[in-house]
């Protein structure tokens, strides 16, 4: 049986992840978004490592290492480099009213707790609260993707969403294939980042602002 202390720590870490998600919501500079993203992945790495420790599941350390090395260090570095290269580091994003977005974020957390807590009544407590917090992170990530118009911040939103799914996967005790799935997800993320680079969205569109892409809708040419 998992002790109270282990239980509390894993809750604290999951809660911290939700908190960092909120912090990401109100950043209006790209560098700041990327820094918060790195912090997000770092908290995830600690949380996964903690799960590995309390579940006695050494393979989860691999997932933690991937989160740390790939998502907390490599991806933010690549994104920062890209922002610098594209010369958009000075840009300030027009965030859709911070207050409203934060309220929507709170609503997301309330929603996920209301949905998940009743249905997971028979699941063990660690997984139970982890899953509901993970769903909050997923929903806030979606919110981030919806409210931002910039490709880089959309990617940041997607990565935080993905961190939430990872939290859920590691919280579900004894879930098989977690490592494989996190590797597959990392490939997906690498694809996204390399994709922005290769497609040179800047070169094509003169901006990474997706508003410019929307000019074209295929029909109006």
């Amino acid at each position, binding site marked *: 049986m998992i002790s109270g202390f282990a239980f509390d720590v894993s809750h604290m870490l999951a809660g911290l992840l939700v908190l960092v998600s909120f912090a990401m919501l109100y950043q209006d500079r790209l560098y700041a978004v990327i820094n918060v993203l790195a912090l997000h992945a770092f908290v995830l790495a600690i949380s996964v490592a903690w799960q590995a420790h309390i579940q006695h599941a050494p393979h989860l350390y691999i997932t933690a290492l991937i989160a740390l090395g790939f998502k907390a260090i490599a991806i933010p570095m690549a994104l920062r480099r890209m922002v610098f290269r594209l010369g958009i580091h000075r840009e300030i994003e027009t965030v859709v009213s911070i207050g409203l977005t934060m309220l929507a974020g709170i609503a997301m957390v309330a929603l996920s707790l209301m*949905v*998940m807590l*009743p*249905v*997971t*009544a*028979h*699941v063990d407590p660690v*997984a139970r609260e982890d*899953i509901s917090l*993970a*769903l909050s992170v*997923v929903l806030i990530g*979606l919110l981030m*993707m919806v409210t931002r118009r910039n*490709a880089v911040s*959309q990617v940041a939103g*997607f990565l935080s*969403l*993905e961190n939430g*799914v990872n939290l*859920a*996967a590691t919280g*579900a*005790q*004894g*879930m*098989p*294939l977690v490592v*494989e*799935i996190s590797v*597959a*997800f990392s*490939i*997906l993320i690498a*694809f*996204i980042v390399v*994709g922005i680079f290769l*497609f040179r*969205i800047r070169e*094509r*569109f003169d901006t990474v602002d997706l508003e410019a*892409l929307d000019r*074209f809708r*295929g*029909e109006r040419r």
Partner: protein
Amino acid sequence: MTETLVLAIPLLGAALLALIRDYRLSAKINVTASGLALIAALLLLVDRPAAGQFLAVDDLNIVFILLSTFVGFTTSVFSASYIGHELEEGRLTPNYLRFYHAMFQLMLFGMNLALLANNIGLMWVAVELATLTTVVMVGIYRTHEAIEAAWKYFILGSVGIALALFGTILVYLAARPVVGEGIDAMVWTVLLTRAHDFDPALLNVAFIFLLLGYGTKVGLAPMHAWLPDAHAEGPTPISAVLSGLLLNVALYALLRFKVLLAANPGAIAPGPLMIALGLLSLIFAAFMLYRRRDIKRMFAYSSIEHMGITVFAFGMAGPLGNFAGLLQMAMHSLTKSAIFFSVGHVAQVKGTQRIADMGGLTSTHPLLGWGLIAGVAAIAGLPPFGVFTSEFLLVSSTFAREPLLAILFVFGLLVSFGALFLRVSSVAFGEPRGPTGPVTASYVPMFAHLALVLIAGVWLPGPLVAWFQHVAVLLG
């Protein structure tokens, strides 16, 4: 053993094609590898391996595998005649073609893996792989439009995939107390036998996530935004496999989870949800068809419409509904890819995809023109084609059970029928418009598909009917 062949052939093909520079040779290898995969899939009919922890062949997925490898093969034949023109036009370079061929096989591998998987985690990884490869293929022309289409597809597809994974995790959580920790709690065959004891509330929430996640990939209405762009801007062989195969793979994933829910007495009935989304997609797409100016985009909306019909059919369930759903899905795959084969060549001749710049096709290119007309007649559900059979079955069985739903359904069908003929008649008949140069097309894939659809409409072989009926009962 045989099931690994279905996977190994495309994988080896992809590795080999990544090494070959000569595009003519690689097109041939592409056709050969797809043909071999089809033969391997046919072998599964006679030699069915036992279900393992990762792979399994059963009555349900073998329908999908056969369809998938067949359309994969015919598309590779079409692609071989299509890419030569793209190379001449300079839309693709030899290097990109090498990449294209390797990706084509990798995509087939991903789809076959998703269909064969006996493990919900493995299936998720395979669907992701298939998505990634198609994203790259959609963006391969590197034009402004293609990149936007690829990006949109990518972001929406990734969100869908993330939600599907969340749903998968919830299914595992529901299974764990019953099946126990470890790999068994993710194996289909185990899940299905024990589903009776799962926590129904958890399964319900899981299904919502799976429906939204995999439903995005099916192209169901509120989550369909990626589909028209991806179909219109990628190379036409990719449009054909997207419509003919990838949508089916996502649908297959949904069906599996639907069966799982049906096996649990306490869980919600997935039917009404699927019926609602299906009808919404059908009616929405039917109206959207009217304002299309791009021919590939129009047929993409028609794919949304038909996935709506299919999901509606599986939502109605029962032996008749499921039978109609299976038939509709198979007929749609064959017909829609035939239409794209025709449209691909038409667009090459005319140098554009704008409907306004095409005309009089039946007089300038009779084979392409009449092929297109036949395809559209089939997809619109006219007799004697196979789509008519399935839609007729669906309408009559729905009228018997839920007359109101049937009225909405028929309304959607009629609206889309009008739109398709309005647009296609201007392309096929009247004064020739646009360039009328000769075309180097291979008509075999297109007419082979149409012939199959015609035969299915006139006469369905007894064993096939019995088999579909059996699967329909399995689907509950």
